[in-house]
């Protein structure tokens, strides 16, 4: 469920992250992207074939395969493409040189919301989920956003990590460039795990996790990734500009403002009602916005629908007209319970009552009515 946050965050695929890393001078394994086994190229070294999916634990789930010749690589590609791994379809593979791994480190830069500043985290215990690492083995450093990254930050961290000089200077180079990525690409997170030290002592970003602030996409029009965790209906809603999340219940919900929508779901849940969705109407004052919202909610096939509006910019009579229009146009036979409070609430409720729709001025009676209509005893 979204917080009352207009935008969101966009997870990039590993191969996209590595393309960005490359552009900023961060060493990544030699490799290329394929969509079919026939695209595998001949090679003179062992390779690893990696499923490009936005979920952790690929390796354990069989999403990563090794190959030592072109036939093995093609076979691996054939096996992986078209399968589902942990529920995610594999359509794209990254074929990379297999690194000779001596050590695995961890490094990330993320937004620390408490300090409201970037946070660098680094550990010599990489290659596993960072949550499972002993916090004492993680070196952290808050960065002053106006100063940005400077080499002394890297010196502090490599000192804490106890890196030998040859590794320390490579690591500082990674950090410097990773901070450039974090800033230039408006990232919420950039993470390299594992940051591999090869047997010849070279540091390479063996994985790449890059999470972009979707609010920044006007600066980065090159990113066009569909969030695979979103349902078809959620993607449709996103395309129409609604903040919409599907849930397991049977009460369709339309409210205005993310906070009020969350509060509505909370109140339903406390009354043992089960919401079917989260839908924030936003701050517009248009009949069509309401009608389109109903169309989305109806596609989720709820048992009943609750509309909870506190009218300010959004006028209650506009919403009421939207509801009656939707009811007619979409031939809605299911119970609709409405709460309208605020600007032009009396007019709004009149419009609804004329159409036989239950309308309340306060939230709690509406909650109780809709829960009852949904058949909760």
């Amino acid at each position: 469920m979204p917080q009352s946050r207009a935008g969101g965050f966009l997870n990039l695929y590993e191969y996209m992250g590595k393309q960005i890393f490359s552009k900023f001078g961060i060493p990544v394994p030699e490799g290329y992207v394929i969509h079919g086994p026939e695209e595998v190229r001949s090679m003179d070294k062992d390779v690893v074939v990696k499923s490009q999916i936005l979920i952790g634990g690929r390796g354990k789930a069989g999403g990563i395969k090794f190959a030592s010749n072109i036939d093995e690589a093609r076979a691996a590609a054939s096996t992986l493409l078209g399968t589902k791994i942990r529920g995610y379809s594999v359509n794209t593979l990254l074929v990379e040189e297999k690194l000779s791994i001596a050590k695995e480190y961890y490094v990330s830069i993320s937004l620390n919301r408490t300090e409201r500043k970037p946070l660098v985290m680094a550990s010599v215990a990489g290659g596993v989920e960072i949550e499972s690492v002993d916090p004492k083995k993680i070196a952290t450093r808050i960065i002053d956003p106006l100063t940005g990254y400077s080499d002394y930050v890297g010196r502090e961290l490599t000192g804490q990590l106890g890196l030998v000089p040859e590794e320390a200077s490579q690591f500082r180079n990674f950090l410097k460039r990773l901070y450039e990525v974090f800033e230039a690409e408006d990232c919420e997170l950039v993470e390299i795990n594992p940051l591999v030290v090869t047997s010849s002592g070279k540091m390479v970003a063996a994985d790449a996790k890059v999470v972009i602030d979707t609010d920044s996409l006007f600066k980065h029009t090159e990113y066009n990734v569909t969030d695979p965790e979103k349902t078809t209906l959620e993607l449709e809603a996103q395309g129409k500009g609604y903040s919409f999340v599907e849930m397991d219940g049977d009460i369709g919900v339309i409210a205005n403002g993310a906070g009020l929508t969350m509060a509505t779901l909370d109140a339903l849940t406390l009354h043992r009602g089960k919401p079917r969705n989260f839908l924030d109407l936003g701050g517009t004052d248009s009949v069509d916005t309401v009608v389109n919202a109903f169309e989305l909610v109806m596609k989720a096939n709820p048992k009943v629908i609750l509309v909870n509006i506190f009218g300010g910019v959004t006028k209650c009579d506009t919403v009421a007209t939207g509801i009656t229009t939707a009811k007619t146009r979409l031939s809605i036979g299911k119970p609709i319970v409405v709460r309208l409070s605020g600007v032009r609430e009396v007019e709004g409720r009149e419009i609804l009552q004329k159409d036989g729709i239950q309308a309340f001025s306060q939230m709690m009676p509406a909650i109780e009515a809709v829960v009852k209509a949904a058949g909760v005893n």
Partner: protein
Amino acid sequence: MGAIVNKDTKVIVQGITGHQGKFHSGEMVKFGTRVVAGTSPGKGGTELNGIPIFNTVKETLPLGPDATMIAVAAPFVMDAALEAIDAGIPTVYILTEHVPFHDTMEILYHCKRKGITLIGPNGPGITAVGECKIGIMPNHIFRKGDVAVASRSGTLTYEIVDAITRSGMGESNVIGLGGDPVVGMTFIDALKLFEADPNTKKIVLVGEIGGINEELAAEYIKEHVKKKVVAYIAGRSAPPGKRMGHAGAIVEGGRGTAESKIKAFNEAGVKVADYPADIAILLE
């Protein structure tokens, strides 16, 4: 006198000819706010809602603005904010949603180095009831009183203010902090102002899941706040959401859930309402 703005506060609106600027500057004037100027590049010399329009903030400085509402589109917020900061406007409120948080971070620390108060982005603004409203809160919900409200949410704030007003109480200051990952004013900043404000007797905090600002506020209340504080947390029914990356998760040490926030408030002696309207009951 309001805690940040008051009846003497002179306000400008950057982006006054946009959809939001146009409508809300009019509402602000109706509320009684002293909106002394608006800006809109290329529209200088005209006026709107009786407010003179200038091309730049610099041109409004002879009018002595104390605060600005930035209502330009997200890609232009950084420039507008830097313009206000460079001009030394003491209070900068950003209405706009969808501002990249890296931009907000930069704006925030430029504000800090100049001693400027930043409110928002993506919040409903600030109201000193009976004196001055900057932002988009509906005019009709307020009644002058002694309850101060700070909230991370918009309509939910109106819901709660309305409940307070309907209960027969009233509000001194209402501040919408904004829902973005990075915002200027925080709960702790608001608590400091409210604790020091002679017109405020009771305090309401409206939080939601995510981040740990509610937990930090609870700690602060324990140490520094003598006035009565009650709270509401939205999102307690939210299924465990997608975490935005490992690094964030581990730093916040498992905090950020509704349970964690409610527990922290309870430990600080702050009662947490189950329903928004129950805030009014807890205040009595």
